[in-house]
Structure formats: C-alpha cells, structure tokens
C-alpha cells in the first residue's frame, strides 16, 4: 500500500503544480488588467504604474512565475492586489466558511440522496419510484445559481423565513447568547446549503438507487431471502452495505462539485467563502488571490480523491491498493 500511496501523493503534487502553472499563465494572459481605476473614476497612470511596480508586474512573465514559485516554496501566497492584505490571511478567513457550507451541503447531499435512493430501490417501478426519479432528475439538472435565486426569492424575500444573504446578522449576532448565535448561523446557512445539497442529492439518489438495485440482484441477497430474513433486513444489512461502497467513492467526486458550485452559490448568497473570494478576485484581476484559491481547491480535490480511495479500500476488503 505504501508504494501506491507514495505514487498517488507524487501524482497529486504534480497535478497541483500543473494547475497552478496553467492558472498562472491563464490569469496573466487573460484580457483585463489589475490596478485600473473603478469604471467612471479618473485615470491615474502614475498610481497604476507605481502599483504595478510595487507588486512586481513590471517584470517579465517568466521572472514573475519563478518569483511566485519561490515565494510559494516558502509558504507565501503574496498580497492581494485589491484588498491589500496577505492572501494567506484572506484564505484563512474564507476557508472555514466554505468548509461549513460544503460540509452542510455534503450532509444534505448524502443523507437525502442515500435515503431517496434506498426508498426508490425498495419500491422499484412503483409510482413513488417514478415520481422520485423525475424529481431527482429535475434537481440534478438545475443550475445551482438558479435554484439559489429561487430559494432566496421565495424563502428569503417573500416569506422572510431565512435571511437573504451573509453569514450572520451584522447587528444582532454578537449580542445573542450562544444558542442564539448558533441558530443565527444555521438560519444563514440553510438556503445556501440546501441549494448545493439538493442539486447534489439528485445525483447521489440516482447513483444509490442503481447501486442498490444491482446489489439486490446478487446471489448473496437471494440466499438471505431464501433464509427467510425480513425484506428490511435484506435491504439494509446485506444489500445496502454492499451498495454503499460505490457511493463512498462518489464522496471524492462530490468535493470538486461542491467547491465549484460554491463559487456561484456563495456569490448569490453573499456567503464569504472561498468561492466568493475567487469570483471577486477574478473580477478584480487579483492574480495572487486567484492563484491562492486555485491552489487550495486543487489540493483539496486531490486530497479528497485520495481519502475517498482509502476509505473505499478500508470498507471493501476486495480492493487492494497496489496497482
């Protein structure tokens, strides 16, 4: 297993390096330039040039790249062009918010997706199965930002059940007792997490249904039934245990989906996470922040994929991590 692990780690580092290199090239070659004044404000060429020099943008691109890698090797992600703060501090501030959002969405995704998939498999080809198939397909097909806007409009603006944006109430939060602060945070989390979680759950449910139906056709399930076990026990203890394995591997794939989905959802709900940070940075041509967030997300996806493989291997003794 160790050689496999070392190979995967080496491959992971190579992937992250390639992503950072491609992103570095892409952001510098893309149209638009940093430090231009906001639209409709006077141009100050001296200030723009001084900022370009201060942030090293007057150097040749290969030199900038080498300098960036050298700084990266020392753990430095640079200073934000637009917010004039260390990128690491900005990411440090945004990361917990994205982890919270992605974690809650993952919970909704898998809890709801697995439950629906199991229910459908247990009632296969029944009316409820057909209805849920259509419903999950509907949610799976929805663009996350559109669903987010609809939820925001209905439950935020019309019904006032949930806040329309942000992570906490800026006026009341600090004055609330612990329970109130938790509730305040949950209220703000609800809509963005549901947006991400519902779309992802649509896919997970379809996957779980197929995996469970596959398992229900296996010989060991027929044997369990022949032994006279109740159908619930057959489904939950025998078939589902087997059918969960491919869903676990889905966990690794869910991470990139959630992180990319977070870019749009965080923007819609003004959720101050990595996605919104990256989207704002792209608009402002804030190269260090774009690179920093890309680096982190690509590393997270690589690690997530590795962890999912390890969990799958731990859960399924048939899998040997030697290839």
């Amino acid at each position, binding site marked *: 297993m160790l050689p496999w692990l070392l190979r995967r780690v080496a491959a992971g580092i190579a992937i992250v390096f390639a992503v950072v290199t491609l992103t570095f090239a892409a952001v510098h070659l893309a149209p638009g330039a940093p430090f231009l004044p906001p639209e409709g404000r*006077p141009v*100050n060429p001296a200030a723009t040039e001084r900022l370009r020099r201060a942030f090293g943008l007057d150097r040749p691109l290969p030199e900038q790249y080498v300098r960036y890698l050298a700084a990266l090797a020392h753990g430095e992600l640079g200073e934000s062009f637009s*917010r004039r*703060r260390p990128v690491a501090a900005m990411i440090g501030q945004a990361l917990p918010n994205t982890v919270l959002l992605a974690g809650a969405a993952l919970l909704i995704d898998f809890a709801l997706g697995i439950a629906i998939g199991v229910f459908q498999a247990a009632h296969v080809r029944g009316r409820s199965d057909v209805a849920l198939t259509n419903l999950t397909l509907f949610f799976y097909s929805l663009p996350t930002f559109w669903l987010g806007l609809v939820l925001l409009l209905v439950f935020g*603006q019309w019904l006032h059940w949930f806040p329309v944006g942000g992570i906490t109430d*800026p006026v009341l939060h600090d004055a609330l007792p612990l*329970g109130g602060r938790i509730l305040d945070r949950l209220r703000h989390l609800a809509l963005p997490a549901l947006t991400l979680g519902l779309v992802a759950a649509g896919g997970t449910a379809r996957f779980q249904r197929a995996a469970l139906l596959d398992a229900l056709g296996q010989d060991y399930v027929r044997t369990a039934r022949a032994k006279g076990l109740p159908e619930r026990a057959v489904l939950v203890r025998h078939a589902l245990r087997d059918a969960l394995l491919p869903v676990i591997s889905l966990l690794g794939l869910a991470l990139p989906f959630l992180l990319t989905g977070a870019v749009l959802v965080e*923007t819609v709900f003004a959720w101050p996470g990595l996605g919104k940070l990256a989207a704002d940075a792209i608009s402002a041509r804030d190269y260090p922040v774009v690179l920093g967030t890309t680096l982190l997300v690509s590393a997270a996806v690589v690690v997530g994929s590795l962890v999912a493989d390890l969990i799958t291997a731990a859960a399924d003794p048939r899998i040997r991590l030697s290839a």
Partner: protein
Amino acid sequence: MIPSSWLPRIPVVVALGILSAAACSRRGGCRGEYCGTLVIAGTSDVTTLLPPVSDAAIDRDVFDQIFLRLADLAPDGGTIGDSGFVPQLARSWEWTDPLTLVFHLDPRARWQDGPAVTAADVAFTFDAYTDTAIASGDRGALSHIASVTAPDSLTAVFRFRDRYPEMFFDAVFHMRILPAHLLANVPRGTWQTAEFGRAPVGDGPYRFVRWTPGQTLELAADSAFFLGRPHLRRVIWRFASDLNAAITQVVAGEADAIEVLITPPNIKRAQDAGHLTLYPYAGPTYSFLRFNLRANGDGSHPHPIFGDPDVRRALVLATDRARMLQSVFAGHAKIPPGPMTQQWQWLWVPELTVPPYDTAQAARLLAARGWRDTNGDGVRDRGGKKLSFHLLVPSTSAVRQQYATLLQEQLKAVGVEVLIDQMEPATQGERLHGGAFDAALESWNADPTPTSSVSGIWGRSGPSNFGHYANATFDRQIATAASAATPEAAKAAWIAAFGTLAQDAPGIMLFSVDNIAAVDSRVADVRIRPDSWWALLWTWRIPPDKLNERDRVGG
C-alpha cells in the same frame, strides 16, 4: 451510558436546547436620542481606509465618516470662492494676500486616540498627498498649491502658485487630514498595504470598530465628536455582490439604506416594500457613447468611420434619446446637453440644447460623405467597407445593455450596423485604456465641479480621453472656464465649451440619472449630498419612539 433507544432523540434535544437558549436572547437596553443602528447595503467591499491611496467610491463613503476636511461643501454650496463651504477642522479662514490662505483650526478637534489635531497634521497631509511615492489620485488637483506650513499648532498656511476661482475648493476638498503621529513613521512606499488602512484612527464623527472583508464594516459614533454627537450610534456597511443583491437586503429589511436604485423596477421594488422612504437627489454621474476618433488599436491613424465629424454628427441625429430614456428610465433620468451631471444644476440652462432626432438629416449627411447602401443589404458602405462598428458594453450594467440594444435598432434604421460586444468591466477598461475599440458606452462619476472631470475625459491631454478627441478651441474654453473670476464668467465659458463639443460630436450624451436613495422610514432628518452620499449621516437620527430591537441592542 446513553440507552441506544435515546440516540435518535439526541438531535431533537440539541435543537430544543438551541431554540430555548436563543429565546433567552438579551434585549438591548439603549434608549433615547443616540441609539440608532443603520445598516447600509453596499455593492462592493472596501479596498483600504487610508484616504490618499484609494479613489474607490465605497472607500470615500467610509472616509467621510472617519476623517474630516478643513472645510466641507455646504449641501447646496458652489465650488467657486469660499462662500459655499462650512467649517470642519478649520474654525475659520482668511486670505492674507491673493495667494495665501490661512486656516485657523478648531482647538476642540481631537484624534480618536487622544491627541489634538494640529496644523502639523495638515502640513503632513499635504506632503503625503503630493508625494510621488504615494501617487494619490488627488495629486494633480493639488498642483496649484506651492506649500502648506504650520507656523503654530492651530494655524495652517496654504500658499498658491497662481490665482483662480476654485482655489479654496482645491485646498479643502481633496484632502482628508491625516494623523501625523500615527503615519509619519510608516514608509510611504508601503501605504498601499499599511495596517493603518485596515484599522484607521480618524477625527470624524465615527470611529472604526471592525472590518470583516467581504462581509461587513462597522463604525461606532464618537460621542465626544467636537461638532456634535452623532445620533446614529452604529453604522454598518453590509457588502453584497451586486446592486440587485444589495436592494434585496434593503427590501427584505436586513439593511436600512442604499444610495442608488437606478432603474424603475428597482424603484418599484423599494416603493412596494412599504417600510422604505425614497429620497431623490441630483445624481453625480452621466453616461454617453464615446467614439474612438483613432483607428481601433492603432492610435496613429484616424478611425475609418469616426475620424469624420460629419458621420459622428449623423449618428447623433439618428439617435432618439428621448425614446430611449423613456423606455429604460420611465422619466427617472434626463438627457444631458453636454458632458454634465445633474449635480451641476447651474449648467442646465436653455442655451444648451440636445440636438434634434432627425433621421432624414442623418441619412443626407451619411450619403454626402459617400456612405450608401450599394448592395441592398440594409447597411451602408463605401469603397467596399460596411458602415459597421463594434460597441463595447460592460456586462455588469443592465441599463447600458438596454441602451446598446436600442442604439443598435435605431442606427439600423439609417443603415448603420452596430455589433454589441458585452464584456466585463476589467476587460472593457483595458480595451479603453489601450484604444482598442470603435465605440463604448461609459458612465462617469464626476466631482462637484466640472473643472477636473471635463478636462480629464474630453481634454486633449486628459488621461481619460480614450477617444482621442482633440480641439484646441475646446481646450482653451475649458481653461477659460477653470480660470474665470466669477461664477457667471465660468458658466459662460462652460456653455461655449459644451457648444464646441456638441458641434464636434466626439460622443453621444445619453442620460444623467435622477439618483434615488431608499432609507428605512424610521430614520429621520435624512439629507443626502449629491457629491458625497453619506457625508451628512452623522446628522441623521432615529426618534426614540421608532427605535427597534436592532437599534437598542448592545446599549
């Protein structure tokens, strides 16, 4: 050991615990005149809170609360002479000779960390704003001032290089006085990223509390503010991703104020909300279509279409601006007869008129310049080249996208093809700066005076003259306006200059929006200054009988 049968109930118990704890939330105790909390919905985050290094609108809004000027514009004040200004840090001022202006500081003024505000701070501020290492955007506006000295702690002496009508405006408007004792030792080259810009100490009505990037910025009233205690106890900016999201916060009651609504649908949303009062005020922006008079991406040659003034004039005549205005703004904007914002009300005079909508005359002009539809495809051509151009439009402006579509339709009627290129502002900005465009729809925020913005955008050597418009007569006229001795003379010179500009048609002036702010109806004494929306915030108040829980909390 918890029995396994209880396990499913644990989440319910936890939820009930949270709910009951939440129900025990403290009730705020602040009562009386000084308890209000105002949440402002902002459309972008702050860059830095160190005034000389930022020109962003949101940053300037916050500067207005934290830092004072020597004197400020009165709500309806003019920029010529000093009669339109009210004291701030300076209690009084006098002209000791035509080129020397002496300010006497108010001895009650204090920095929020304790020391008195002194004339040495004023001299230090001038030195910082004019330092090339900082390259402040206001440096050019201060170039008429030769020196600022501090003969004693309460006297600041400004010496000018020459005499002109807006000397006083330049002396006070561009600089927010900075604390020398906190900034003198910060290397000027590092001011862009200085810690002070993230936690400033000022002398204004509000003190900095905290800034959570991407989320909120909070200020608290300085109860010892020497010009009078601010009534609103807390002011919080809440940053949204765009104007729609910001308006949604205000409509949903999660924010109390927004400075602009812009479009009729937004205005209707605010009106329908029921809890908001709308405050119209003269807008500081104007929008126009700019022609590039040089070839797209090649500044050494004239533009094949827009290099010809008759073609530009024809396009102006072929544009039905009144219909576009009605279609997009339903009456909430005006057509400027020149490069004018509504805050320059004194320039909206009958002598300046909008050219008529006259497609017949436009067609005649185009035909006279050789542009005819020779192949019957509906687009005029000359020498095998179609009368077709690309129009840059920022993807973030729904209003200008609507205008682009309407322009496309109207110009098609006279045989001109408009190809709309929507792009994000950063890309459009780069194309404009590089001269890589045919025409663009732009919006500009202007100062309270036309002096700086008109020359910058339309003057031959203006840094924002992206279309390369050049006319020595126009330059002379705006120079005359800037140096006119009286408001009447300045007005006459501006009218002449805008007449020249209209004749040359380097662009089509499209609209100047009636700004409308929406503020929660519990807020009283709301006054909005066109050039600086929140400058008078410290005089707003929430009457004690209208305070809600959000106003009282933490008191």
